[in-house]
């Protein structure tokens, strides 16, 4: 009976197949291209600068707890601060400036500075047209929020400031262009709340 012979051949063949297939090529590492490690919100009234910094060394994928720090002391009452935001990926060397990406697709992104505390108000001071060559009209005049103002009242104490960056928001929805997040939709790239104080 040649069945036995066939089975023997079959096993040898199988063994060959297995050994010939095992290549040990090392896999290529992947870095999260959308990683944001650092967000810096700088508030200045011309003399003093208050910095709100968020730092998460391993981003959304990693277990390391993010570290928020507020430096430059509490905000002053009844003051208008000029604000700007910088978003970085410091896991790369040199650090990647994510602002450039946001500026490049300004019409698909918007920051929101949300607070209900101490009468603080915020307002945008930029427009999409600041980041492109097209005329400042129509939809190109909508805000992005890379720069803004923050105004405190005479109320003092502790409060919260929530900083949000959304991509593909509905920029034309009611209130969105004045910084109201309620109808914005879209997906968050950043959503972080800082503890702030006014003295």
């Amino acid at each position: 009976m040649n069945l036995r012979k066939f089975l023997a051949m079959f096993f040898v063949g199988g063994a060959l197949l297995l050994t010939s297939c095992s290549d040990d090529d090392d896999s290529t590492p992947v870095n999260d291209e959308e990683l944001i490690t650092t967000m810096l919100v700088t508030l200045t009234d011309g003399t003093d600068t208050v910095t709100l910094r968020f730092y998460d060394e391993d981003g959304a994928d990693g277990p390391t707890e993010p570290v928020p720090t507020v430096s430059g002391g509490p905000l002053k009452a009844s003051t208008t601060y000029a604000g700007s935001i910088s978003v970085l990926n410091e896991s790369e060397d040199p650090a990647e400036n994510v602002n450039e990406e946001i500026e490049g697709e300004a019409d698909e992104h918007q920051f929101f500075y949300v607070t209900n505390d101490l009468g603080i108000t915020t307002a945008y001071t930029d427009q999409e047209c600041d980041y492109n060559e097209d005329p400042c009209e129509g939809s190109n005049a909508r805000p992005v929020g890379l720069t803004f103002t923050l105004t405190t009242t005479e109320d003092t104490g502790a409060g919260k400031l929530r900083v949000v960056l959304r991509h593909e928001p509905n920029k034309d929805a009611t209130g969105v262009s004045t910084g109201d997040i309620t109808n914005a939709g879209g997906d968050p790239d950043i959503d972080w709340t800082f503890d702030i104080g006014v003295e």
Partner: protein
Amino acid sequence: MKRFTFTLVFLLGVLFLSAQDCDKTLTGQVIDFHDGVPLEEATITFNNKTIVTDSNGTYTINNLCAVSYAFTVSHVDCNSQVFTIDISKVSNKDFYLEHHLNELDEVKVDGDKTTKTSSSQEETINKNIIERYSSGSLGDALKEITGVSSLNTGSTIVKPVIQGLNGSRVLIMNNGVRMQDMEWGDEHAPNIDINAAGKITVVKGASALKYGGDAIGGVIIMESNKAPAKDTIFGKTLLTGSSNGRGGSLTSELIRSYENGWFFKGQGTLKRFGDVEAPDYVLSNTGVFEKGVSATFGVNKFTYGWDAYYSFYQNEIGVLAASHIGNIDDLIASINSGQPDIIRDFTYDIENPKQEVTHHLGRLRYFKRFEKLGKWTTQYDFQLNQRFEFDIRRTQERSEIPSIDLELTTHTVTSDFEFDSKPNYKFTTGILVRYQENFANPLTGVRRLIPDYDKYDVGAFITGEYDLNDNVILDAGVRYDFNRIDAQKFYLNGRWEDRGYEQDFSDIVVDRNVTGSQLLTNPVFDYHNISATAGVQYTFKDEYQFRANYALSQRAPNPSELFSDGLHHSAARIELGDLRIDQETSHKLSFSLIKNNKKWGWEIAPYANFIKDYILLEPVDTELTIRGAFPVWEYRQTDARLLGIDAKLYANWHSNWRTDHNFSLVKGHETDDEQALINMPAPNFNNKITFAKPDWYDFTVSLESQYHFRQNEFPSNITVFSPDAGENVLLEVNTPPDAYHLLHLDTGMKFKLGTISTLNLGLTINNIANTAYRNYLNRQRYFADDLGRNFLLRLSINY
């Protein structure tokens, strides 16, 4: 052809008759090739003379001349064979006939035996049901079987659940090939065109050891329509249209076969749907575009056969826009609002998030039947599975690059021998060798959820079946499988420390200085799995059957359970596997008592499945990130117990009226603390009344009521910090939705077109009352209601 042969035989006979010296004798036996049994009353015909064999199958032919004769040998149910014999040289000759004309597919040696196992719970759905789900999916059709439910992502991604278990615990055999299509993910549906199947059998447990030892949930066996060994051509075309989703499907099949055993078969399906709709709104971005093609050809002979089969499947599936959430606050908002936050106008466009899956399957098979021994089958199959998942990413440029890009290649060789020549017992033994490679494309720019790996499987089994007497069949089997997984896995340093891997697995680190604070590891894990089964089937009083079965099975962890680590973008959750996860072991006892007669019948099928080290994925915590908080889902192992019962009853009240009643219940708990297991299907109770009138062009109409109870046993919810609310809130991620009741109507008629063709017309109305409901086992239940009313028109032509 046949007639021509006879004529030839006759003419030759006349020719030879003219020779001289006619005193020779030919003696011998006519024997069944299959089992060596002598055949009584076989006929040997030559020159218009007919000789009949005696009870020992022997014959004697006298007065032959010393020339060549052509003898036609026949026996009831056998194909006649012509043998030419030179009487001058031969005086003794045994003729072999084949009683059991084999088709290339599964053999049904015993005429009345149609099940895959003798003792376990199983059920088959036939062509009629498959046709009704032509525009749906495999998972939808299988829900016709009591005890089978589904784990859905929306209405288009449907994973079958057998008696509470799904994913890697459910093995799917597609035309003799075990599907390797990344079944590990909750949102990965089987990559199968249901229209390629002629019938589908579900074995509810691991007893069908031939197919694999790790089927703790069960085995789904899809078989295509067989090509008969005769000269024929036939086929069918099926066209469907649905109101919900405003789309339809077209499927066509053609089979050509020849008496010499050759056959060809081709089949193709096209499905296109736009957004489906819930009763109150459009479920935006839920379109589907599915394509399937398969072709096979081969030879199906008396003692041997071979075939080549290839199938291609591609599916582009939109994922509900509202289910794409950014962080935990989005999830909380969605659960609270009860309405999807994105409702757009109906469209056929499929945008991100979406899945694009492609599956290639090729198979070569050969069988040979050995005299008085059995049948040997050997098969090689190749599968290539590709999965892209596109997500909404930070920039549009990035959104064009898939977030998940996996390519799974599998080669398998199996060989088995079925010893079936003895009348009262048979056994089957076989081996399997498999190599699998997973390639996770690094160009996604997203850290891999599933790493690159090589996997090696070797298995061997033996199963046997013994007919103790006319009423009792015993079956038993044992199987051994070896699995090795050899992966290249990157971990973030922080995660590596956090999981405590440095203590336990420092020896698998290959490189500690990988860019992006990562390290590269090379985990190589071996698993030895033993599975076994034993059971009995007892038939009594003609109408009753009792089946009892015990099955032991072991399943090695899948890559997702071992290696998941990080943010699963499409699910907006952080999923953590565990390198320490070991195989799970199931002991399942199942019984069924069945009564069947013309008037009525019923089946009661209780079971108990004790699973040691059951692997489950459940929400445990949240992690804060710059995008807000994300729920963390972690895999862990625990001892679990699943107790359940499937019951059904039918009654033919009158020649035109029939009712069907099905009930299934499963309760899953952890054995040590009685905590309910996550994702156990809720009990359901189906009742159907059918009116059939064969005189009116085979008219049938049925009304079905499906009642889905609320799942009252579920693991506790978790408390999470909501940045929005600025405080800890209860995340009701485990709370099941309410019970619901659905009504469906189905009607059909059949018309003759000419002599052989038939035209079938059918109309189905699903969810007649347009009830808004959510199903506990639908991952999109947090975001939107399930499907609303659907009118489905079906037109099929068989030719």
